[in-house]
């Protein structure tokens, strides 16, 4: 699913270093890979509207949860993808 980190974003207020974020992502990657099919279906659907997406996830007690997502045009995505 992923072949390249294009950018690592660490906000100024965050205590984490870039290397910590890379390490955390390496831990998360196998878990994200286990839901690869669903992630791809979602990302492809968003792409049909011509947008990118960010997914917010957390890992707690070794469990992955997708907890939010953002696009640059929320109403457009909801209008196109969510049944009325």
């Amino acid at each position: 699913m992923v072949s390249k980190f294009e950018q690592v974003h660490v906000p100024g207020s965050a205590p984490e270093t870039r290397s910590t974020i890379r390490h955390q992502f390496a831990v998360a990657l196998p878990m994200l890979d286990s839901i690869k099919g669903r992630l791809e279906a979602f990302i492809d659907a968003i792409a049909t509207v011509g947008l990118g997406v960010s997914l917010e996830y957390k890992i707690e007690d070794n469990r992955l949860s997708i907890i939010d997502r953002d696009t640059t045009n929320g109403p457009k995505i909801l209008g196109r993808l969510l049944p009325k």
Partner: protein
Amino acid sequence: MHKPSTRPPEKWLKYELLDLYGLAKIEFFRKSIRQFSRAEYASALTHLTKEIRTALREKKHSGRDAFFVTKLVRRELSILLPNVRIKTLEDIDLLQRAIQGRPETQDELCFAERISVQKFSAAVAESLLIFGVSPLRKSSNRCGVVVRD
């Protein structure tokens, strides 16, 4: 009095979309997020005061920490929502001040999400994964990685 809309707020519809694609369960959000209408804001403060007292008591015994992320949610907006993180009783005052600054007629809800964190857990990470054209704002307060296929 302004009549609140019955349409679910856009923020909630975002969760429904994640559920539709099997990425999250709407039941999880129903359990972890309590919604208060503008008319119920006083009840929200009472509820959170009680919950934080309980969480602080439990923390001493269970080793689990809990706090609340509260968001003032406009129905037509799902980003840039004012939010207050409540970990102590003093933080309730911050929410009260935030609420007092909101117009009475605002068609708005307060989302109070309970976050439970296991103390000493080695792998509590919260991060962003960004695909395609990056919507990542430089000002984003979340750590994240932008990835490519």
